[in-house]
């Protein structure tokens, strides 16, 4: 069964989408041959991260094939200083299995705010993977992180099980591969990798054990994302690992 490490529920503000609710997303993913997915809600990106987390939590309760990731942002809103911190035990009790950070959507610089370090230290202690997307989808209209910022954050927190997402261009892949060489905790997600024979090249240079299939569906076309793995010039064992086994191992799924 193909497992998608980077899917979404929720509405898409830029153009009409045919899948938004959890039921619609599960059906859309299934139509593309994807049987399970780590999700967060787009509400977390565009409205409020915790409201979106509640949607992801409810979606996973209704559809066990969905694994919720907590999308975390700043606790400071309406110019009031934050009170308290993140309730990681609570997130664990609610079924969350990992974290996603979207600084480019949440108006903070991840190298200069304390709360990001707090999140990453807690995630490392729990062994929770942290998804850090350079871009949400492969579309130039979307806000991006800077490559150097991504690299600096990973180097600052090498114990975190990182999943670098939204990587495509050659220099971005080079950065990711360099981080993978430096830190055994760094993984690479495939949703935005579009280059000619790029999956095979990455697998040859970094091994297939830390490559994770991601679709960014249903915003991106999941079948197209699957196709690049199915047709990649890698061994069948590597293909299975990329499509499912690596993510299941990382998330400790049965």
């Amino acid at each position: 069964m193909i497992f998608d490490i980077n899917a979404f529920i929720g509405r898409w503000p830029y153009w009409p989408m045919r899948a938004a609710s959890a039921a619609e997303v599960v059906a859309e993913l299934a139509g593309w041959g994807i049987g399970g997915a780590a999700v967060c809600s787009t509400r977390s990106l565009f409205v409020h991260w915790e409201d979106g987390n509640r949607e992801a939590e409810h979606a996973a309760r209704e559809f066990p094939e969905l694994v919720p990731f907590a999308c975390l942002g700043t606790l400071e809103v309406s110019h009031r200083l934050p009170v308290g911190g993140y309730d990681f035990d609570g997130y664990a009790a609610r079924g969350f299995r990992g974290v996603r950070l979207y600084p480019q959507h949440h108006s903070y610089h991840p190298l200069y705010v304390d709360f990001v370090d707090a999140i990453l230290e807690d995630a490392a202690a729990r062994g929770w993977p942290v998804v850090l997307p350079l871009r949400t989808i492969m579309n130039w209209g979307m806000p991006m992180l800077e490559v150097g910022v991504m690299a600096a954050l990973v180097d600052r927190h090498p114990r975190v099980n990182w999943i670098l997402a939204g990587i495509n261009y050659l220099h971005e892949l080079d950065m990711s591969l360099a981080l993978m060489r430096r830190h055994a905790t760094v993984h690479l997600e495939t949703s935005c990798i579009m280059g000619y024979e790029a999956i095979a090249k990455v697998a040859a240079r970094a091994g297939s054990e830390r490559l994770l299939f991601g679709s960014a569906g249903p915003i991106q076309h999941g079948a197209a994302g699957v196709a690049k793995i199915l047709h990649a010039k890698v061994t069948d064992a590597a293909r299975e690992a990329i499509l499912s086994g690596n993510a299941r191992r990382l998330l400790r799924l049965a």
Partner: protein
Amino acid sequence: MTVDAHVHIGKSTRLQIDADGELLVRAADELGFDRICCTDLTALFYDMHEGNRLLAREMRRFPDRILGWASLHSTRFGRAALEELERCRHDYGMRGLKIYSTPDMSIAEPAMLPILEKCVELEFPVLGHLTPQECEYLLAGVPECRIIMAHAGSQPFAKGDWNRAIMAAQRFPNLYLDTASSTIDTGFLEACVAALGAERILFGTDTPLLDPWVQCEKIRQTRLAKADLDLIMGGNILRLMGVEQ
């Protein structure tokens, strides 16, 4: 018949490409493509004469598989560019013009208009790496020219805004859209066909820059009628290039 309307041949260190006809035809065989429409990278970015000559050689090696886009590396070469297009049509048997544009060196300028007029005369469609706004400028100048907006707005200079590309094509009936792109947004193709009809959408992969399997799947896995898919996957580009099917 499946025809890839957007393929690059030749060399570019910037793009990390060195691809001859043999490599590209072998890839086309794996993908099940009958024909590929190629533009030479040297002609596109450095020297039109040398690059188009190289492409013509590859076309002769694979006459049943490679269709040629003549390329110009600039609009600023006046009569030499027009003569090159004549040569590409009559001596090399090429079937259209491919040209690139960037925000810092846009081809949406008066110097491009005689080139478009020459393309009309030669019955060349023009595959342009253009933004919607550039297409609108050019088609306002030479409305009878058939322009294919490479990537349908899904390229960096157009900010990936394929919705804007569709709006431009709704205004200009001779504007066509090519599907090749790193962007694989769901709903893109359905929106194009709903707004413009399948006759104005062309399948392309941008091989060997992009993964062609991704480009195929984002077209084939849509909820379109087979007749529409047949047009998109090859019928339209052959009709525009005047190639018998």
